[in-house]
């Protein structure tokens, strides 16, 4: 594939992420922050996010296994997690987070668990998509 084609493909990938609701405006902000001083800024941030949030997810997993459920703690953790998600613009993941918090408020343990699983799914999907995307970005950069 020549450079133009790759570029076009990259653009399409990126567009799809937005169109399909995986990413929101925040991601664009990150892209805008990227400059010569930090040429891989966006990827670095995303990597940091995934690394950092993994801990939180693990904590929440453990909290969800307890009985009875500590909704306050869950809500608090999720609040934190939501903040993190907002940093990269993980739109779908964020949506699940709000759902989760809503169930927490309703003290709906089942709802919480369900939503949590859903959230983890979205979290994983996005991670994969972004990995592919950044791989492509690097490749295109190499071509230049």
């Amino acid at each position, binding site marked *: 594939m020549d450079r133009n084609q790759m570029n076009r493909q990259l653009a399409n990938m990126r567009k799809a992420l937005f169109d399909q609701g995986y990413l929101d405006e925040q991601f664009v902000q990150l892209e805008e*922050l990227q400059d010569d001083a930090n040429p891989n*800024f966006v990827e670095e941030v995303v990597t940091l996010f995934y690394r950092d949030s993994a801990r939180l997810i693990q904590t929440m997993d453990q909290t969800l296994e307890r009985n009875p459920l500590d909704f306050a703690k869950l809500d608090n953790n999720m609040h934190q997690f939501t903040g993190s998600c907002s*940093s990269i613009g993980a739109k779908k993941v964020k949506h699940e987070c709000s759902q989760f918090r809503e169930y927490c408020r309703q003290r709906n343990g089942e709802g919480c668990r369900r939503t949590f699983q859903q959230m983890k799914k979205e979290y994983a999907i996005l991670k994969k998509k972004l990995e592919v995307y950044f791989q492509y970005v690097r490749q295109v950069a190499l071509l230049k």
Partner: protein
Amino acid sequence: MDSSGFCSPRNNAFPAGLRVLVVDDDATWLKILEKMLKKCSYEVTTCSLAREALDLLRERKDGFDIVISDVNMPDMDGFKLLERVGLELDLPVIMMSVDGETSRVMKGVQHGACDYLLKPIRMKELKNIWQHVLRKRIHEGKETDGDGLEELHMMSQPEYCNDYYSFSIGDMYSGKKRRIDAGSKHDDREYSDTSCIKKPRVVWTVDLHQKFVKAVNQTGFDKVGPKKILDLMVVPGLTRENVASHLQKYRLYLSRLQKDSALKDTSFAGVKRADVPPRDPAENMFLQRPIVVPQNDDRNGNCGTSRNESPVHNVNVKIHDAGIKEVALGPVAEQLKALTGDDSDSKKRNSQCLSSNYSFRLPSTDITLADYVPSQYLWTTEYPQIQCKPESISHMHLDNKFDHLSPKVKIQKNEQVNTMPASSYYSIGPANRKEDNLADREFQRIRELPQAESEVNLFTIQSESQLSSTQQFGQTPSPTWTIRNGSSFAGPILLEDLEFAHRNIRLSSGSALSSEDKESLNNVLQGVHQPINVGIHNGESFDCFDPAIFGAVTPLYESLKFDYEFQFDSMEYPVLDQSLFIV
């Protein structure tokens, strides 16, 4: 770099180089914010723990301009951090959160946040944070308006630094006094307390002081203790600590008086009782001038709380009427009693105001502070040679103003002024300026002031904050000072006064003293080391108020803030409007 931060080279391209401290436990956000702020050309420091942030801030007191902090943090609640930062360091703080719930935002604002940003945060929001810094600086500047003095102070007392604003003049004086006198425990404590935590200062208004004196006299000057005084005073909000420190100062003051009165017996020949108006404010030995409280006897304008305000401190001006010489020579407590006792005639406030506004007595006063403040300061408002501009002439004003306040106080022309040898006044600054002339002349005379002279010009010294905020300095009466030599009070008072004077000089934006005057005044003050209280006050109400009495007063009442405005209805002293402000 100075406290305003505007003078350092880094700030030439303000807001570029703004020093921001970002506190957030989320590593991702920390990285993003750092990048964003760097893009705004700010100098960024990141911190993931609140405690860490506080330590950092305290370590580098003047190292940051603004703090951005997340609300939710594991080790400390963001609001708590906000409070601490605001209280201790008086830096603008911006809160951040993913939660935009109104109640949270409100909480943030209530805790003093300058702004509350919602995550995800946009670049443009961060681009504007410098406005908070600027706003705060301007606000502070307006209130204190004492950059020069500040600097002066800071130079001499580096530890004050950023906390300058939070210090009341009293604090400074305490500190100074401490240095000179090998301080009192109280002063030390106060000083150190305030140096790390801003506490609203208690302003010892005339009224409050009266209560205090009454309580003291009731128990017996020698045996009384702060607890007892506090109980007798029955002033809500007043702490034992406040009373204790006040008592300390009072005792020092009295002992000084005694010492001095012994020496001064002959020095105030010029003082004539006859010249003293019946209701001589001198009755009030201690004049406290609440700097602020307009008519509020018990109000203590407290500048402690708001960092921006200059300390409102009562200036205790001891106006001792020349005629009361005998009183002065008597036991101090007695005198005080006499003084305070006499106040009952007139409206408390008025008399207090008046006494405190000794200046109203103006030139005519034959007040001999000398007895108490041997030749410390003589203010001659109506100094013939002082050509205060009519508008600014305090005594004119004062006369009118005070008339209604206290008919008893008569403002007499100060004939004595004329008799004073020209050489005896020490002038502040260039003498060519009309308004300045007063001060100038006075200063010049200070040194050579004949002891016999006992003119007292009361000077109103306004706190910086007050001056700037309330005064319409259309006229800035130049204070006329006459500083006498040979005062045995010279010691600690001097420095305090000096400080104070510096401060005040700086203050008035509309001061009659030009900056050069102020400068020379400052120089004078420094060089002379005389307690000089320059009341730069322009305000209808008080013109040349003479804190000459400062000499005597200052030992006890560190701040020389004369604010006559309070007498007349609320001049807008923001600080003044608070009663005994103790937090």
